């Protein structure tokens, strides 16, 4: 058995425990770059940051996403905000925006009316759903800003 000198004991206490030979592995720059809410650097216009439900979106993404419930570009349909048209469905499906729903109806000759539910809708299954309809719908239900509806003919 080797005799331990005082020096060896001290050395092994100081060095042995911390494994001083090794460069400690660590995550670098974590204070500056960490944080889901911080930009990683580079162009702000493009850098995605942690946002809605875990998706990393750019400022442009978020802008478009917010507008998606409001913006549409169409001449064929008469669109009314805050209105729900029950029944008469020939199609139901999820879309990315109000504009997409409007376009779908426009391009489908059987579609005479549509209803779209906004992201704000309390029922998750209905958010950003698009229903294409015939003329045989029920009476319009007004004053519900979770919905937008439109008709190809006059209301």
């Amino acid at each position, binding site marked *: *058995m*080797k005799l331990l000198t005082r020096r060896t004991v001290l*050395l*092994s206490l100081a*060095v*042995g*425990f*911390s*494994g*001083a*030979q*090794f*460069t*400690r*592995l*660590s*995550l*670098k*720059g*974590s204070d500056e*770059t*960490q944080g*889901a809410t911080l930009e*990683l650097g*580079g*162009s702000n216009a*493009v*850098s*995605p940051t*942690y946002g*809605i*439900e*875990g*998706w*990393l*979106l*750019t400022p442009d*993404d978020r802008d*478009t*996403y917010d507008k*998606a419930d409001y913006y549409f570009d169409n001449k064929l349909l008469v669109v009314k905000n805050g209105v729900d048209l029950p029944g008469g469905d020939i199609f139901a*499906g*999820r*879309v*990315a*925006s109000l504009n*997409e729903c409007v376009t779908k109806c426009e391009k489908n000759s059987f579609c005479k009316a549509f209803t779209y539910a906004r*992201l704000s809708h309390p029922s998750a*299954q209905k*958010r*950003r759903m698009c229903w294409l309809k015939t003329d045989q719908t029920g009476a319009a239900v007004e004053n519900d800003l979770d919905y937008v509806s439109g008709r190809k003919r006059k209301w």
Partner: protein
Amino acid sequence: MIIDFNDINPNRFDAFIIGSGPAGSAVAMELSRLGRRSLIIEAGAENWDISIQQELGHIVGTGHLDGEYFSNHWVRSMGGTSALWGGWCAPLMARNFANWPITRGDLDDCYIRACDILHRPSAFLDYSASFVDGFKFKPFSGEEPRRFATEDPNIYTSDERITIVLEVSARRLRPRHDRTGIEAIEVWSKKFGVKEINVSGNQAIILAGGGMGNVQVLFGSETTDAKAIGNESDQLGRNLMEHPHFYNCGRAVLPAEKLLPKVPPRFGAAYPAIIPDDNKHDEIGLDSSIEFVDSKLRVDDPLEVFVASQMQYKVDTFDLNVRSEMAPSPSNRVLPMRDRDPSGLPRLNTRCVFGSDDLQNAERILMELSRSLASVGLGRIKIVNDAIYRSATGGGHILGTTRMGADPRSSVVDRNCRVHGYGNLFVAGSSVFPTGGYANPTLTIVALAVKLARYVAGSK
């Protein structure tokens, strides 16, 4: 050949290998190829036996990975943990050897032989393809796992230079008086109690009992007068590492046709994955990999639908699994308890806690990927917070507990995997890894086993 302990003639053997898992089996195979004979001492039976597993494999411990977890990944039967592994292979890269006393170059030939032993073409070793800024495409080799015990024929019965005794536990190594080598292996069996094998200076002893087993047999040599063999600097069992696995920790929307290369046929079976390139790795400080798993667009998720519709190309959707590097920490360790198992070996107590950096590394690599994809307008990433910060698990990889290093004060084995100071005692397996990279360890375990066998054979 499987033999009874009483029929052993110890003088026949060039090496005694403790443990018959991939490490021990690869050492035996390579020694055989070089004309050397080995005796494998395996505590388990020919077939997996739950009572042996429970009696000998019981571990207690706390942390993100607890004692039961480590027990579950230490298979006590012929063929060891090859019975369980998934067949995934990837080599460690040059950048992963920064804290090792050997280089990637020292293992190049050994990796090729390892591919041969693990039944896969070697083209995947150096294959990579470009991906977005900061990353490269580096798939895992995904051939069927070799199961050393259940393949027919198996090496234990078909190779005349490989002999194995079963249900025999190596419970203590007796050092020579001057502690420059091992002079005997004390074994225990339910059938005959305690016996000894005398070992000459020309015969090598290779511990291949797994990250837990190697530590256990070394601690078994501790006495009231002397520290355990390999523990002279209090390094034995320290720096226990795993590979944090974060399953379904993200989703990706991107055009596969434009971004994901087609793996060439010579590669063999592949699991697609990306890793940070060398610059990005150096910037981040810890290694990682992101595996892409095909998934359908979640039409019920308005955000995913929105994100997919925003991309200029038609996109594919993927679930993401991150497998990453865990930084070594001396307080993550394996310790012996006073309790003994039926063979007389100390029962083990573990602590394995993921550090804050280990967890944040997964988030960081996803954020880096998201930035690179967005900057070329080709995709978006979702982070699943709880899959990173609440559900991290391991890969069944037990690393670091008898680490390799040049300095005996901060390591257990040297660059040749010899336990510092002991001429005829070596360690095989992932317990020698000073750092783990992100890659599944089996391929590197086998490559190091080949290197060790060549060293042992060459030094005669």
